[in-house]
């Protein structure tokens, strides 16, 4: 991308209530009040026609199909309205979440029940009960909907094989950590996808060399034979996680972009020096280890926040921090200073914003876009 500090989405958005309810039961016009409000904000001119279709749908499959496409359009428009340069797949509205969405499409995996991830967030954990293989396309329909409706540049996030294995009970594969070969899942999206983001939050959970070698092997197998752009997204690693990832990132074939979480670990005061931007120091490891690709730098926090926000850095609203454009700017400028080339820096949230309301998400993305503009001005 020619412009400095382009902004990208990184993962999933919260699911609107009408989308969630409509998956299991018919909707009434009352259920669509919120959808109508957002249609006006996001500029969805054919909302009334689509709402009629939704309400008239007799068959559940028809309703669900309409719902999934419509919620994808909402996600795309939200990203477009906030000014993002890359709109991904519109906030992954067609996925339960990044793990379960794939697992439900894999024969041999059985979902056992929910396990806490943090606080009141959970994931539905599965066990490999027998030899596994893909039952049906996992990302294809979503990609086709996105291609049809998106106005901006796309990126298809998929969940990486190492993470799928690490988050599952091994069961049938007990005795050895085996990488699921889910290459086919990516072949779906590869049909004209120009950029695939492989989400691998689990890497560095086991920072031992054997596991990291397994990760590299599974990555290289996943991307083999394709010529689109590939990026890795890894967030919330263990204490030395990014240091370890930095050693292995140069070994990842075709990985020209790393999207990483930093705002979570950063202070909230303004400044572009090491003292104020302590959360971004791990970027140095990647440079020291010779990684020469781009960085998607997490500049806004995506979880609950409680702490001090100095004047000028944003504000605390409920359980959220709304970072100011100036704080985003300083984080980007500091990242560029470490990397040594502002052309290699993208701005993004730390991770998907699915735990935030759409209002908060909207505000955070607007701030990110404005912060990137300020960083561009400062870099001129």
């Amino acid at each position, binding site marked *: 991308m020619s412009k400095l500090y382009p902004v990208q989405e990184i993962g999933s958005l919260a699911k609107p209530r009408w989308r969630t309810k409509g998956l299991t039961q018919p909707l009434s016009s009352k259920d669509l009040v919120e959808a109508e409000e957002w249609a006006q904000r996001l500029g969805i001119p054919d909302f009334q026609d689509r709402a009629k279709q939704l309400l008239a749908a007799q068959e559940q499959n028809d309703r669900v199909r309409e719902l999934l496409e419509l919620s994808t359009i909402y996600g795309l428009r939200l990203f477009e309205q906030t000014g993002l340069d890359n709109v991904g797949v519109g906030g992954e509205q067609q996925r339960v979440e990044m793990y379960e969405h794939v697992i439900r499409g894999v024969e041999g995996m059985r979902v056992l029940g929910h396990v806490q991830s943090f606080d009141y967030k959970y994931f539905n*954990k599965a066990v490999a009960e027998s030899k596994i293989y893909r039952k049906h396309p996992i990302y294809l329909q979503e990609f086709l909907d996105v291609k049809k409706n998106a106005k901006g540049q796309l990126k298809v996030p998929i969940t990486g094989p190492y993470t799928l294995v690490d988050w599952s009970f091994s069961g049938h594969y007990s005795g050895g950590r085996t990488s699921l070969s889910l290459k086919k899942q990516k072949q779906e999206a590869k049909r004209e996808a120009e950029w695939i983001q492989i989400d691998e939050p689990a890497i560095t959970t086991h920072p031992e060399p054997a596991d990291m070698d397994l990760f590299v092997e599974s990555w290289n197998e996943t991307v083999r034979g394709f010529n689109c752009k590939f990026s890795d997204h890894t967030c919330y*690693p263990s204490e030395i996680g990014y240091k370890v990832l930095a050693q292995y990132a140069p070994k990842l074939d075709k990985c020209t972009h790393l999207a990483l979480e930093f705002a979570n670990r950063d202070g909230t005061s303004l400044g572009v020096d090491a003292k104020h931007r302590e959360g971004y120091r791990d970027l140095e490891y990647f440079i020291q280890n010779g990684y020469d690709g781009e960085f998607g730098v997490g500049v806004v926090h995506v979880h609950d926040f409680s702490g001090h926000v100095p004047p000028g850095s944003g504000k605390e609203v409920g359980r959220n921090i709304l970072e100011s454009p100036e704080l985003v700017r300083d984080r980007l400028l500091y990242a560029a200073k470490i990397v040594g080339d502002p052309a290699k820096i993208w701005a993004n949230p730390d991770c998907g914003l699915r735990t935030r309301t759409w209002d908060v998400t909207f505000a955070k993305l607007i701030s990110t876009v404005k912060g990137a503009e300020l960083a561009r001005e400062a870099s001129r």
Partner: protein
Amino acid sequence: MSPKAQLGGIYPRSEQLIKLTRSYDRAKTDLDTVKKQIEQDTLELVKLQDDSGFETFSDGAFAWQDQLRPIVESLDGVTTGTRYDRWFDTNTFYKKPTIAGEIGVQAFEPKNFIRADLLPRTKGWKVTLPGPYTFSELSENLHYTSQSDLLSEVAAAEHEIIKRLKDAGVSRFQLSEPCLVYRPYREQALGKAELDNAFAALRKTVDGIQAKFSVHTYFGDATTILPDLLKLPVDTVGFDLFETDYSKLKIETTKKLALGIIDGRESNAENPKWIAETATRVSKHVIGGDVVLVPNSDLKFVPRKVADVKARALGDATRLIEEAR
């Protein structure tokens, strides 16, 4: 050998509680409804322990958001602000404590640590806390100039918390110290001086309190530090049998050994017969002390129905051993 079984740490929330907490998080359910379900989950776990013949009961810590949070919320000088960190090699996260000032203990409700109102008076009550070393290691220290100072202050604070919980009726405390045996997140190996500081902190934590204490390690091999752990003034020392190579151990002790014999990180339910046989095999390496059957770690890493099967298997195994005597 006449082993008893115990649970420890955070037990997984039921699917119903998960549903309600998610709904609460989205402001669709009120807190009272969540609290009622926490009570229900606690009572169900009490019944499970009762049915399984456990003598010391845990309340499941269903309201705890992570293993460190209730401690943090009881201390001055320590906050959790913005940062979530991974809990060892699991896909669960904890809010990283920040030590920003002098550590002190606030007035706190024992109910934040244990639901004594829901536990039977006829049984002993157990609370599991992170040991001072693990708490210190998993925190970000912005205040104390040396690790030994930090450890000493954390130990003093935990000592105070334990005293108050003891006064509230808790009879057994498990101090979990996974950081003593599992530290791939740290580059340096655990040196002797650091280990000595950790043990000194553990001594300070339990010093003078008339309660039962166990120090429990998990997620790593405890072989090398077991002799030192057995010198601590605690009545029980626990380790993770899935990580510890006991085959070369020869343990002479009067203490109890808590065998982490069901795996909190795997879904397959251990067979009671296998548990009984394994415990018997391990006990042959122990001269003098008895064994206690426990999960290797908190069971919160598996879904509730899996945990229930595992917990019942512990009780069944103790009966099999008893019958075989």
